[in-house]
């Protein structure tokens, strides 16, 4: 049966909770929240996002705001982002590293007029806030805005039409990883060309109490494309198909960006930053293990914790795995000994009493369409 990570009766509720129940959403505990895991079927919902457009309530995500004149210097020093000299509207995917060079969280960094907004994983929000607050220096102030800001993701090849009609032409024309201050259905919002699905898509950050009106407007505007609400189950399948890391599964405080294939998130910079020395040492020495992708057969479904073999020898462990609705096969992300990570053949995964042959996949399992309707790849 499905495992529940949290069963606290006092779990937090999204401002869209009632709308999810009305829409037939199956609500489950998730990272301290009660969120919709699916509305109809994970397979159907993945198809909706890959072929049309879907709406995700991701209001459980945390938002931490940094203000004050030293905010750029401080973000550059505490995170792997490089924001000094960057203008309003820039969005960066970045990491928070600890003093040992391990990953505290993977985050989005938004440069806004007068502030920098960090979007963090729900399960890590309190930890991140405490860490940043304890490390920040100079004239910069850290505020947890998570309970005021709701987040809705609009993802899929038809998402541009929906954004154009609910937010406007400027938002619809945003480049990948750019954002603007605008209005969604008449309410103030930050809109960005970002997402966690590999499809063309946008994310909308808005006021907690305004989010139901924006959600309804998006459903109405998307009706001609048969827009659907999409649960967190499909969100996880979609990100796995893109080989995007999930914090807690594929990366954690004992993972170096070098082994996770996330070196590209550590921007080249002159100044010091937390975790710099251990990170550079890990880069110099080379990783002991590396994250790889493996594709299996349609009836071979890997799960986290399963053993990865190479030439019959145990070389690693699955960290994310499941059935890919788009590929129609089992897929896995997992760490293997670095000396085997460049191997092309002879991988397998132990599934109960047998070994399932696995094909190594470099990059995503499904081609990325983030830069357009499939014609431009990431």
């Amino acid at each position, binding site marked *: *049966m*499905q495992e529940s990570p949290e069963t606290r009766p006092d779990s937090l509720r999204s401002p869209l909770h009632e709308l999810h129940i009305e829409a037939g959403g199956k609500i*489950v505990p998730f990272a301290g929240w009660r969120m919709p895991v699916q509305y109809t079927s994970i397979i159907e919902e993945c198809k909706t996002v890959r072929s049309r457009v879907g709406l995700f309530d991701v209001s459980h995500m945390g938002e931490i705001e940094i203000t004050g004149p030293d905010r750029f210097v401080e973000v550059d020093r505490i995170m792997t982002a490089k924001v000094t000299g960057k203008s309003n509207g820039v969005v960066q995917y970045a990491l928070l590293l600890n003093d040992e060079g391990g990953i505290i969280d993977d985050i989005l960094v938004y440069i806004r007029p007068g502030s920098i907004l960090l979007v963090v994983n729900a399960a890590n929000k309190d930890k991140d806030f405490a860490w940043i607050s304890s490390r920040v220096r100079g004239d910069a102030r850290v505020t947890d805005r998570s309970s005021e800001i709701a987040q809705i993701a609009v993802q899929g090849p038809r998402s541009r039409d929906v954004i154009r009609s609910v937010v406007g032409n400027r938002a619809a024309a945003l480049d990948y990883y750019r954002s603007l201050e605008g209005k969604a259905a008449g309410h103030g919002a930050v809109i960005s060309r970002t997402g966690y699905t590999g499809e063309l898509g946008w994310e909308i950050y808005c006021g907690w109490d305004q989010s139901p009106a924006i959600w309804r407007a998006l459903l109405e505007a998307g009706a001609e494309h048969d827009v659907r609400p999409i649960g967190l189950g499909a969100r*996880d399948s979609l990100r796995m198909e893109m080989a995007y890391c999930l914090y807690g599964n594929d990366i954690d405080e004992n993972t170096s960006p070098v082994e996770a294939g996330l070196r590209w998130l550590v921007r080249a910079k002159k100044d010091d930053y937390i975790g710099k020395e251990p990170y550079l040492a890990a880069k110099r020495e080379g990783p002991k293990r590396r994250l790889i992708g493996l594709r299996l057969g349609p009836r071979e479904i890997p*799960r986290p914790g399963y053993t990865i073999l190479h030439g019959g020898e145990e070389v690693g462990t699955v960290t994310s795995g499941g059935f890919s609705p788009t590929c129609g096969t089992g897929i896995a992300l997992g760490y293997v000994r670095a000396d085997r990570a460049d191997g092309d053949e002879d991988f397998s995964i132990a599934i109960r009493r047998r070994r399932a042959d696995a094909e190594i996949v470099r990059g995503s399992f499904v081609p990325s369409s983030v830069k357009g309707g499939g014609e431009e790849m990431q």
Partner: protein
Amino acid sequence: MRIPEDLKYTREHEWLLMEEGTVTYGITDFAQSELGDIVFVELPEVGDAVTVNDTSGTIEAVKTVADIFSPVSGHVIEVNERLVDDPDLVNRDPYGEGWMIKVEVEDPPELVDLLSADEYNGLIEQEQANS
């Protein structure tokens, strides 16, 4: 959530149809709903011996995997071959076309504790209240 009156149930969320010397079993509507989209069902071979409370197969869903526990000891006389190509029959019709395994039971039968439809309904209400 459908719970037909004429079937018996187990705490592992399986249903049983008891006939003369045989037991047919599958998973309940609640179980298929909790598992979500089922993409593969691994069933035993006809002739295999099954033992009460042992695993007699596996259900792979998109997000999770579950064992099929044998509610009875005996020999497999039939499995639902249609599930090989159409595993989502379990989602669509768990008590009918989504049946899984038919066993010839030993005499006297060795069975798990069985629940009536009412008792099973009480069990899932309790589980839902706890989640």
